[in-house]
């Protein structure tokens, strides 16, 4: 959780000036003319022009081929699909009952019959992991939704309105950032009580600060861009500009962030459920499954290892997809 916060904080970049316009004389890095500043753009034009003699393929075909060339991304997409199926139709993947076991088969290592082995009550671990997906994913999605919606609204308003509103909002965000996200979640849980939904809300609210910060800087970046001023100078009303230029252009990074957040939320939710603040047992939340295996650590490695690896794979997949959406080298946005 904290790692992701910091990552985003690092991407904040220098803050944009709040003044509507900074004269070039004030900007130490102002270049005397746009010719030097746009050298790479013009070079790209020239390359594009030269590419005429290269073979051109349809965008879909190119995209598919690019995908094939990235086995990591392909794997991430496949895993995400499996996780989604497990969340919404767990019986398709594991028809058994996650809550009842065969005591005679207790603590069996992974085998063809029990892919992930069995726990101390003889319950099939694979079935439990599959059926636990729903709880964990639901909580993570709720958390992301809460964090994104509240954070995005605050960031959007602060960035677009500016002035005092911006100042106040950002001071509050500064303060919230001074408290580590997990601790803030814990404080909220103390008050809200335990349970999946409360954990989700706590994780989501703890992320509001960082999301709003990113949203604000995105809005500022777009708002101060030339094409937005051009729209304004062209006679568009401010809400038209906001809705048609600023929002669509600021939304891209937010989608990237959402994917990244989902990974972080899965981590945070399972940490809290590991600590015992989620659904009470025997609900098979991923974090709780790992916690349940603690007592058999020396004898039954699979009880902690396999649910743990499931979490790792899910978070990795979310991160990989987020990077792909962010336009990693070689793919167009």
């Amino acid at each position, binding site marked *: 959780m904290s790692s992701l916060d910091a990552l985003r904080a690092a991407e904040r*970049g220098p803050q944009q000036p709040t003044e509507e316009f900074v004269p070039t004389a004030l900007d130490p890095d102002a270049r005397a003319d746009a010719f030097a500043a746009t050298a790479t753009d013009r070079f790209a034009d020239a390359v594009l022009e030269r590419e005429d003699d290269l073979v051109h393929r349809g965008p879909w075909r190119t995209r598919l081929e690019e995908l094939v060339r990235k086995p990591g991304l392909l794997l991430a997409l496949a895993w995400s699909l499996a996780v989604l199926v497990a969340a919404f139709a767990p019986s398709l993947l594991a028809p058994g009952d996650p809550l009842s076991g065969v005591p005679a088969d207790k603590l069996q290592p992974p085998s063809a019959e029990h892919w992930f082995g069995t726990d101390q009550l003889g319950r099939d671990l694979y079935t439990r992991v599959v059926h636990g997906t729903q709880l964990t994913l639901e909580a993570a999605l709720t958390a992301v939704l809460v964090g994104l919606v509240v954070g995005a609204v605050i960031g959007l308003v602060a960035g677009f309105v500016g002035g005092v509103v911006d100042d106040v909002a950002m001071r509050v965000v500064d303060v919230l950032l001074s408290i*580590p996200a*997990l601790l803030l979640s814990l404080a909220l849980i103390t*008050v809200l009580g335990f349970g999946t939904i409360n954990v989700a809300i706590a994780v989501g609210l703890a992320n509001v600060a960082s999301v709003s910060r990113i949203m604000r800087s995105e809005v500022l970046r777009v708002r101060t861009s030339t094409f937005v001023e051009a729209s304004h100078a062209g006679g568009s009303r401010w809400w038209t500009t906001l809705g048609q230029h600023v929002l669509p252009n600021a939304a891209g990074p937010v989608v990237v962030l959402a994917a990244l957040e989902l990974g972080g939320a899965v981590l945070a939710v399972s940490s809290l459920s590991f600590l*015992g603040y989620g659904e009470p047992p025997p609900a098979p939340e991923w974090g709780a499954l*790992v916690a349940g295996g603690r007592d058999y650590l020396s004898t039954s490695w699979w009880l*902690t290892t396999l649910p743990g690896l499931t979490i790792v794979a899910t978070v990795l997949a979310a991160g990989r997809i987020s*990077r792909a959406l962010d336009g990693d080298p070689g793919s167009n946005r």
Partner: protein
Amino acid sequence: MTRYLLRRLALAAGVLLAAYTVTFLVLYALPGDPVSIMYGGESSDVTPDQLDALRAEHGLDQPLVVQYLTQLGHALRGDLGDSVVSGQPVTQLLGSALPPTAQIAGLALLVAVLAGGSLAVVATATRSRRLSGFLLSLPPLGVAIPSFWFGLTLVQWFSFQIPLFPALGNQGFASAVLPAVTLALPTSALIAQMLSRSLLHTLREPYVDTALAKGAGRARVHLRHALRNAALPALTVTGLVVGGLLSGAVVTETVFSRAGIGRLTATSVSAQDIPVVQGVVLVAATVYVLVNLLIDVIYPLLDPRIVTGARRRVAPPTAPSPSPTQAHGSDADQAAARVAVPAGGTR
């Protein structure tokens, strides 16, 4: 410089006060108060009258503002109230829990900076594409591993399979190794990710080409030119990194059953012991504020572009020089009007 320092100090105090206020609002202003959370609920056999008596005893029947001011007054005098569970003063609980946590957190920070830093440097410096690709794929993996699971896996291998370190407890240095490694994993992954990204970006800067054109070797360019510039943005998130170590301690100390701030937090949350939770959050905020204050003091020493005091002495006006440099006028103006570029945003 003194004025800058005073301003930073005032700012830090402000953030701390605000953090206190936020925790107060979260813990006391939301529906439900400590007494009803502790003793209320359907299963409780405490009567409403008894609840009210308890509230009066803790001052919870007062209006919110009065509660806030009274508590703040106490807090300023170093009294954070008593634990609802054990009745011990919160400050005393925090005081005894802090040293063991500081021990593993400090060790973890050291490991993380060394491991993360060297990974980033090697990954960006190596000429082998494979090695760099492999190294750069490690940090995302490190960030994705839940630390509770990593801790348990370490115990499995290095306590049970190969009994090198104790699986739990607070006894001696050996017992601190596995928790510190657990705590260091996400932090080092984060540092590696930030620094390698920053280094890759810096290595594409034109001034790196300038250095290469001087005839500088790769090592010189990497260590003398790129690293310092690349480390600056990474430095600004140290506060978050240290805060991350504190929240990581909650999980780590639970896994290893170690006494410390984290364990105290976990048990207090489980018991819904609000004064203690508030104390922990305050400690975290204080650490964050102190770390950032330290960075604010160090940063101008590392980055000459940050103006600290009153107007920095700017280039003296160009004296009438032999060459026709009068047209430097606009240039000189630009230099005089130059503004500090805040790196990584202001806090």
